[in-house]
């Protein structure tokens, strides 16, 4: 088995074509006969709104999903993939967005799962060879990860890097990345792109999915744009055109995203955080949030922004400092009391934290404060609950068949709107929104921005945590930069530009130039 980059050899093969792929789930067509081709030594990017079929296409190409029609050709030989494992055997590897952990196993074993090297007559596992080769592969990619560490200790970025090394270990020549950058910080994205460029240089065939225009324009050689399960555009560097790509994706003229010309911020302090600390995530965090203001928290993933929010929200223990809401201290209060006092938090991971996907829209909306549903005989009045759900659906423009539809059936953007409806229905004094547009397609993003702005105009103070600079630049009156658990910079008004923002927290990482 070709084990490392060094052994990978020259780029003589690896042209991977998918032709006329058709796939439908039940009666819903997802892919309507589309074709793409990937070439060795090139990075192919697939763009498109959520639901355009990008992930499904990649899954078909990686053997995770069986198409209803169409063909796959690797180096002009037809290919039938019945499982991801078979794809691996043909040298095709899909790096999932959030690699599946084997938390109890060591990093080395995780890398070799399914292909553990054996030795001797008894075919016992060759642990030392495995560790050595795992270490070699990680080093070749410039990664410093302890192969004996338990996998549960890896960050998402490290997990992705381990996945890359896994692809190499399996001798795969075609590596597909399913939206690899969305959980990563800018710094980590740079690292990933370096790796990808290096692999491109060695003749690997690479493809990835992204929503982020900047990085797409930065790294791609070919771009395919998908819309509603069909290929609508296909361009090669250098014919990239940001506006054209955007409009192709959404199928309409994309408004440019300017900074907001107005501000609803007042000088009335609603939330005052002082000297807040939670070891080891962050310390000495202090800021004031005003009525109607949209305040951004920028920083790398892992800088402590989510931890700050969760500490304010009472989900984590508070080691030091104080939080004052509307003049009353809420430090260390349990979450349900904090909600009752008017502070809400929409977490970044909807499926795990933000919503209960098997429950209905109405039930999810009322979950924020079950007590607000009217009682009859001490029981929850279902009509009232439906009414609350329906209100949220119409106010936040949730596209659904009815309030009794389960959240699982909705798209990411609509799920997020339901989460919004849950919290905004309480007319909170403060709303903390953690990555509010994560996994939301471009069109819905705009709608969500408008909802946030409308809420601010109604007087709610909003704290937005985001890793997308564009988002922060567009939304915020003021932005705090967090680096390693401390506030390192504050930008406001016209001082907010992507360049300054990037520099504000990246310069501390010693990589300021990258921004």
């Amino acid at each position, binding site marked *: 088995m070709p084990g490392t980059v060094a052994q990978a050899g020259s780029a003589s093969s690896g042209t991977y074509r998918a032709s006329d792929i058709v796939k439908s789930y039940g009666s819903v067509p997802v892919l309507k006969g589309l074709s793409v081709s990937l070439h060795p030594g090139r990075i192919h990017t697939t763009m498109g709104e959520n639901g355009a079929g990008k992930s499904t296409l990649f899954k078909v190409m990686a053997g995770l999903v069986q198409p209803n029609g169409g063909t796959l050709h690797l180096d002009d030989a037809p290919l039938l993939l019945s499982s991801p494992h078979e794809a691996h*055997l043909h040298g095709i590897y899909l790096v999932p967005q959030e690699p599946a952990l084997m938390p109890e*196993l060591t990093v080395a074993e995780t890398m070799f799962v*399914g292909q553990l090297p054996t030795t001797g007559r008894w075919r016992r596992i060759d642990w030392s060879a495995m560790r050595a080769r795992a270490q070699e592969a990680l080093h070749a990619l410039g990664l410093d990860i302890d192969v004996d560490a338990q996998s549960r200790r890896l960050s998402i970025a490290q997990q992705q890097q381990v996945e890359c090394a896994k692809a190499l270990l399996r001798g795969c020549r075609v590596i597909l990345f399913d939206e690899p950058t969305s959980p990563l910080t800018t710094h980590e994205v740079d690292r990933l792109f370096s790796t990808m460029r290096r692999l491109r240089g060695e003749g690997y065939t690479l493809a990835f999915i992204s929503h982020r225009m900047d990085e797409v324009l930065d790294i791609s050689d070919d771009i395919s744009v998908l819309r509603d399960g069909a290929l609508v555009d296909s361009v090669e560097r250098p014919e990239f055109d940001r506006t054209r790509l955007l409009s192709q994706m959404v199928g309409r003229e994309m408004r440019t995203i300017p900074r907001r010309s107005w501000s609803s911020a007042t000088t009335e302090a609603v939330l005052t955080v002082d000297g807040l600390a939670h070891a080891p995530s962050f310390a000495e965090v202090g800021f004031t949030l005003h009525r109607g203001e949209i305040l951004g928290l920028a920083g790398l993933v892992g800088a402590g922004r989510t931890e700050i929010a969760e500490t304010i929200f009472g989900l984590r223990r508070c080691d030091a400092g104080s939080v004052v809401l509307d003049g009353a201290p809420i430090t260390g209060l349990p979450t349900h009391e904090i909600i009752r006092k008017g502070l809400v938090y929409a977490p970044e991971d909807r499926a795990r934290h933000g919503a209960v996907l098997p429950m209905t829209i109405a039930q999810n909306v009322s979950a924020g404060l079950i007590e607000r549903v009217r009682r009859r005989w001490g029981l929850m009045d279902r009509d009232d609950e439906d009414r609350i759900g329906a209100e949220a659906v119409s106010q936040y423009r949730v596209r659904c068949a009815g309030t009794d539809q389960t959240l699982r059936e909705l798209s990411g953007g609509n799920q997020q709107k339901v989460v919004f409806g849950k919290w905004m229905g309480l007319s909170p004094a403060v709303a903390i929104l953690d990555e509010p547009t994560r996994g939301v397609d471009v069109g819905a993003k705009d709608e969500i921005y408008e909802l946030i702005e409308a809420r601010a105009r109604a007087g709610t103070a909003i704290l937005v945590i985001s890793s997308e600079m564009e988002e922060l630049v567009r939304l915020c009156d003021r932005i705090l930069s967090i680096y390693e658990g401390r506030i390192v910079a504050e930008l406001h008004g016209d001082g907010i530009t992507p360049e300054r923002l990037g520099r504000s927290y990246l310069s501390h990482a010693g990589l300021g130039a990258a921004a």
Partner: protein
Amino acid sequence: MSAPALQAAAALPVRPRPARGSAWLRRDLREIALVGVTIATVLVVGAFHRDFMSLQNLRFMMLGCVVLSLLSLGQTVVIATRGIDLSVAPVLGLSAMVTGLMAQTGGLPLYGAFAIALAIGLVLGTLNGLLVARLAIPPIITTLGTYSLYSGLIFLYSDGTQVDSVPHAYATLGNGVVASVLPVPIPVLVLGIVLLLMWFIIGHTRFGRAVLAIGNNQAAAYNAGIPVTITQVGAYTISGVLAALAGLMFLSYTGSATVTTGTGDHMELQSIAVALIGGTAIAGGRGNALGTVLGSLFLSVILTALVFVHVPPIWYSAGEGVMILLAVTAGRGARA
């Protein structure tokens, strides 16, 4: 730790491997702790009651844990896949009953008994596995259902009779020593062989690692090309076979089998308890053979110690309950 850029990495010399000792020590902590606590119990109780430390008592404490250890080894493999096997008790009972009755009335030779026990374990265990892996019935429900079915089989087969005595060869298997110069009881030897085998299977074969991988993350295991269905079925088959072997050892050791053998003593719950004490994670993905056997030995030592210090017998099961809680909470502390 700041990460070097990729370009620089190529030039990096391969660093010396990090000391594997520390990581391994961390993972083997439970076994070391179990051995420590077991020895401590023997010494402390032995200081007050000399007979507790007598070679004979030590041997019987080992003998006493053989059947439960065999059962728990199978349970360990199943729990490691994130499953559970409640049907081990009736499988044990059925194996003891069938081989016992055939030996008692038909003079079934010992090798025949092994063959029959293995066949019973193989068939019943595989059936569990197929129900879990192929029909996607949750393990606890599957084995709850087969618990009833297999218990019924014992009645059907025995038709209300019981095994009271076994031929000489069986008694030797259950009570003899390997050789007069080597006074190791044969059941302990059998357990030793099975332990070695299971240690090798879980720790050093692709199948064993696949079991753990499935317990960690079934979808990822599938995607990595692990034959999930076969591995799952295999885990239940192993559990069935070991339970049947435990039944044969039970028969040989006690010379008896009744319709309530296994189920009457709630062996299924005991085996789960032992696996947990031995460090198997109930959520799957972690489990090893040595820990399980040490856990079983520890339990045997503690329960015998309770007799020596004259704790009334009604509190033995409470002692077991307390130990499960201690083992599980202490285990978590060590891993954090």
